């Protein structure tokens, strides 16, 4: 695609402006003038430009490192033992090494989104033209790309404008990655500041990707009424040819749908997706279906249902091609990033490719042209479907029992299982014909098949679990609203006040992957709890899917029960992972629309606003990827705390406030310049909870902000205390730190709380106009 891209650009240049010999062009960044708004202090910030802000955050939210390994093995001076104060051959100590690894992860994550955005923008420009307007919300959205505008100062108008912003992202990313080199940065807090920078750049990358695809493909544009589609293992009509699309970069899937439509085949072939490509293809066409999050890959492939598997990039099981071969489904790789050893057929005649795939002469093909993927995938699916046995490789009930008998109880599977699932115990029962214990593992199993790798007996454990849960899987049919994209200005206008004042108790963003400690059902429970309490619940990616996969007594999913509007008690599927910046964007737009703050290149002020006023919290209950790490860090810098599940501790460091250190919780009162104690709100910036209960109580706590009005604080306290009592059986020990004035106290609990406060020697204190930035003091 690179060559093609370049040629196109050259042609355009030649046609548009003439022919160039020895032409000298200054290619700089064109910052478009927005007459109504001056440019802020930090346009296109480089690594150190926001370091002061970062260090402010890091002084309060101190890194707690939990090394995942005692060693560093990043260069051939190593391995170096960094245990207990030892330094590596380059002088590095363990704190710096851990923060460096976090930076590396965030760079990989950001690179993935930015690279994805680059490929997408290139493709869409080629297909729809450079002048295609950015339009993510019709007239309902004034600033299409708030993160980009906030960070860089520019306001891209067309697909073509996005390229220079990507140039900036790639440049910053290159600098950041270089900081991971041996013999570069030495201070852990400076590494952390760079982590924040990576997260911020990542947000731009994601924003570009989603803005481009919404604009060009006509995805729902900030639509609270985005249509419903189906999700679950059981939604596919197996009587039709089935194309399974997996990944994140949607063009090949779009061209599959286009080919179907163009050839009057629409409705005759099922297009079903896993991971974000599933989100995005349903945003393109709600007739497509979603199988589920990443952990559904193997169980669904092994079922034998897909006739063709098309993968683009990200979150693809890396040996999926061997699984595809086992069920006789041709495998099409559609990205240069994931070639999977396949021959490059991009420039071959589609007839020849179809023939090779259908006949089984070739197990798969690499096709780097989405249009050709569309044609080949459909044709292969239609030709192969009648011939394929769709039975897959899930063992029958009897076979399960036979396999179970082979188990020697060596425990290797359990010791390999990330969730320590009691497999040997379940097999012991299964060997006796009772599959219930095996079936019970289904919900908690993330489909990683490390157990199978570890089993010396070669028992296909995951298939056994899936088989035992076959009926349950087949009945998985749920409704999900497709990703709506951004939040409308009018919605912000309606809720901005209530959020900042605290009357809408908070915005809870459920994002990220499916590395759940105890199944996706926990995400659904969290969502339900807060929706019921009139928080605004927004979701993206795998979490948005997991939430949908539970029904209430009436058979309704959360998306059916709650409206899709950004308002108290709304439950919003925002979209895929790259839709995350719409969540950041909503927070930013509150500052813009409600508080009339300037956005352009004004990062620090807006982050300070959000940290002190916007009660938003991110929850990535199953976060596992480097992308999730960079997404989280983008939120940190912006002042939005993030909670992860227990596996998230493997990111190796938390950013924790210390509620009892009074000195950490002073802000300026922007009206007077006084330093004022505001209590530990929000208490943490990056926190891992062990249990969903702990997460829920922490969510309710972290949405409190210094600027809450007494009414708002009372509402937030009500929920926090209520949850705390329910799950922990008593009042929070640190409640007094969050009650500023008597009026903060929820009326219904007045006596109990007053008694508590008296014991603590509590006194009323002022509620300032809070900021951490001296320059914002007006008085």
């Amino acid at each position: 695609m690179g060559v093609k891209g370049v040629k196109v650009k050259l042609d355009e240049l030649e046609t548009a402006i003439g022919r160039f010999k020895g032409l000298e062009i200054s290619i700089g960044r064109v910052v478009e003038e927005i007459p109504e708004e001056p440019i802020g202090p930090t346009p296109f910030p480089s690594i150190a430009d926001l370091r002061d802000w970062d260090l402010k955050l890091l002084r309060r939210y101190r890194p707690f490192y939990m090394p995942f390994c005692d060693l560093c093995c990043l260069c051939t001076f190593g391995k170096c033992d960094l245990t207990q104060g030892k330094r590596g051959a380059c002088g590095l100590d363990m704190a710096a090494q851990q923060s460096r690894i976090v930076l590396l992860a965030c760079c990989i994550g950001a690179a993935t989104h930015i690279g994805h955005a680059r490929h997408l923008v290139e493709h869409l420009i080629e297909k729809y033209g450079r002048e295609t307007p950015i339009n993510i919300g019709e007239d309902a959205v004034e600033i299409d790309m708030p993160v980009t505008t906030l960070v860089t100062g520019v306001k891209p108008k067309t697909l073509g404008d996005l390229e220079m912003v990507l140039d900036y992202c790639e440049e910053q990313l290159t600098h950041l990655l270089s900081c991971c080199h041996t013999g570069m940065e030495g201070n852990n807090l400076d590494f952390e500041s760079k982590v924040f920078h990576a997260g911020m750049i990542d947000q731009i990358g994601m924003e570009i990707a989603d803005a481009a695809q919404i604009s060009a493909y006509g995805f729902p544009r900030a639509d609270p009424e985005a249509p419903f589609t189906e999700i679950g293992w059981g939604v596919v009509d197996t009587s039709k040819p089935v194309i399974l699309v997996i990944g994140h970069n949607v063009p090949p899937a779009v061209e599959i749908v286009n080919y179907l439509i163009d050839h009057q085949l629409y409705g005759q072939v099922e297009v079903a997706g896993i991971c974000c490509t599933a989100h995005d293809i349903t945003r393109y066409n709600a007739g497509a279906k979603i199988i589920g999050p990443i952990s559904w890959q193997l169980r669904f492939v092994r079922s034998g249902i897909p006739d063709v598997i098309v993968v683009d990039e990200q979150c693809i099981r890396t040996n999926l091609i061997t699984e595809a071969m086992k069920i006789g489904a041709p495998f099409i790789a559609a990205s240069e990033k994931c070639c999977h050893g396949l021959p490059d057929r991009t420039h071959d005649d589609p007839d020849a490719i179809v023939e090779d795939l259908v006949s089984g002469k070739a197990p798969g093909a690499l096709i780097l042209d989405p249009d050709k993927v569309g044609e080949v995938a459909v044709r292969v699916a239609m030709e192969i479907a009648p011939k394929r046995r769709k039975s897959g490789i899930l063992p029958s009930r009897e076979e399960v029992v036979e396999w179970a008998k082979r188990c020697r109880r060596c425990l290797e599977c359990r010791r390999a299982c990330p969730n320590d699932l009691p497999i040997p115990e379940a097999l012991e029962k299964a060997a006796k014909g009772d599959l219930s214990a095996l079936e019970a593992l289904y919900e908690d199993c993330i489909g990683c098949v490390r157990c199978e790798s570890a089993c010396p007996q070669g028992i296909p454990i995951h298939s056994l679990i899936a088989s035992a849960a076959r009926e349950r899987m087949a009945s998985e049919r749920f409704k999900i609203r497709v990703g709506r994209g951004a939040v409308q200005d009018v919605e912000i206008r309606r809720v901005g006040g209530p959020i900042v004042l605290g009357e809408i108790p908070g915005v809870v963003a459920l994002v990220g992957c499916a590395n759940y400690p105890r199944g996706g059902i926990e995400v659904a429970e969290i969502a339900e709890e807060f929706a019921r309490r009139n928080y605004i619940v927004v979701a993206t990616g795998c979490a948005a899917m997991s939430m949908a996969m539970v029904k209430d007594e009436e058979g309704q999913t959360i998306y059916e029960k709650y409206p899709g509007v950004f308002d108290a008690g709304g439950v919003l599927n925002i979209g895929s992972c790259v839709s995350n910046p719409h969540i950041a964007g909503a927070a930013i737009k509150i500052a813009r629309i409600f508080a009339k703050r300037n956005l352009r290149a004004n990062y620090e002020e807006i982050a300070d606003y959000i940290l002190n006023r916007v009660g938003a919290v991110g929850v990535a209950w199953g976060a596992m990827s480097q992308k999730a790490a960079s997404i989280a860090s983008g939120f940190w810098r912006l002042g939005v705390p993030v909670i992860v599940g227990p596996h998230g501790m493997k990111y190796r460091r938390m950013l924790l406030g210390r509620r009892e250190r009074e000195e950490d919780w002073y802000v300026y009162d922007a009206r007077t310049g006084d330093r004022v104690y505001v209590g530990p709100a929000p208490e943490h910036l990056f926190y891992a909870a062990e249990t969903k209960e702990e997460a829920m109580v922490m969510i309710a706590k972290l949405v409190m902000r210094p600027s809450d009005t007494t009414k708002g604080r009372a509402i937030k306290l009500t929920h926090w205390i209520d949850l705390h009592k329910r799950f922990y059986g008593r009042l929070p020990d640190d409640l007094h730190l969050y009650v500023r004035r008597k009026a903060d106290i929820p009326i219904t609990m007045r006596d109990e709380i007053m008694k508590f406060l008296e014991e603590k020697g509590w006194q009323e204190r002022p509620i300032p106009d809070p900021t951490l930035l001296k320059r914002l003091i007006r008085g």
Partner: protein
Amino acid sequence: MRGESWQTAEIPGPKKAHVITDPRIVASLIKRSSRPILVVGGEADEAVVNYAIELSKAVGMPIAATPSTLKAFAERGFKDAHPFSAVEIGERLRDPDWEGLDGSGQYDLALFMGFKYYVSWLILSGLKHFAKRGEGYLTTVSLDPYYQPHASWSLPNLTRERWEENIKGLLHHLGR
């Protein structure tokens, strides 16, 4: 397998916990400690909570408990359990300057029980590397029924029965 990480891949590094071959070892660590603390995690079941209370009472040692288990402690009328989540107590135990639950300063011995394997694996790692105590480091003890290499001392991988024996033995040696 006794002295190997319970989760196969959780290989630590050069410094690994001593295996507790006899509960007397723990008893003597506790007795020699001037300020021990018991940390109870979110996986604690009834038995763990009961043993924790016994242990605490045996030597007057406070408990930092993951908030979700607070109810269980309260139900048993136990007062000396203080709510800290895993990462919160980890971060505090790391800090040489933390004032402790009672304001009298840091602890010199921390015992862990009731955790998901990988959770205490990581908290103990954080403490092993960063919990400075003068010239040395905080002594940590894992009392869960699997080997935790990042602790200073750890029980080996044990069946539930053998584990209970060990804890009972420990209580016995502490005079309960």
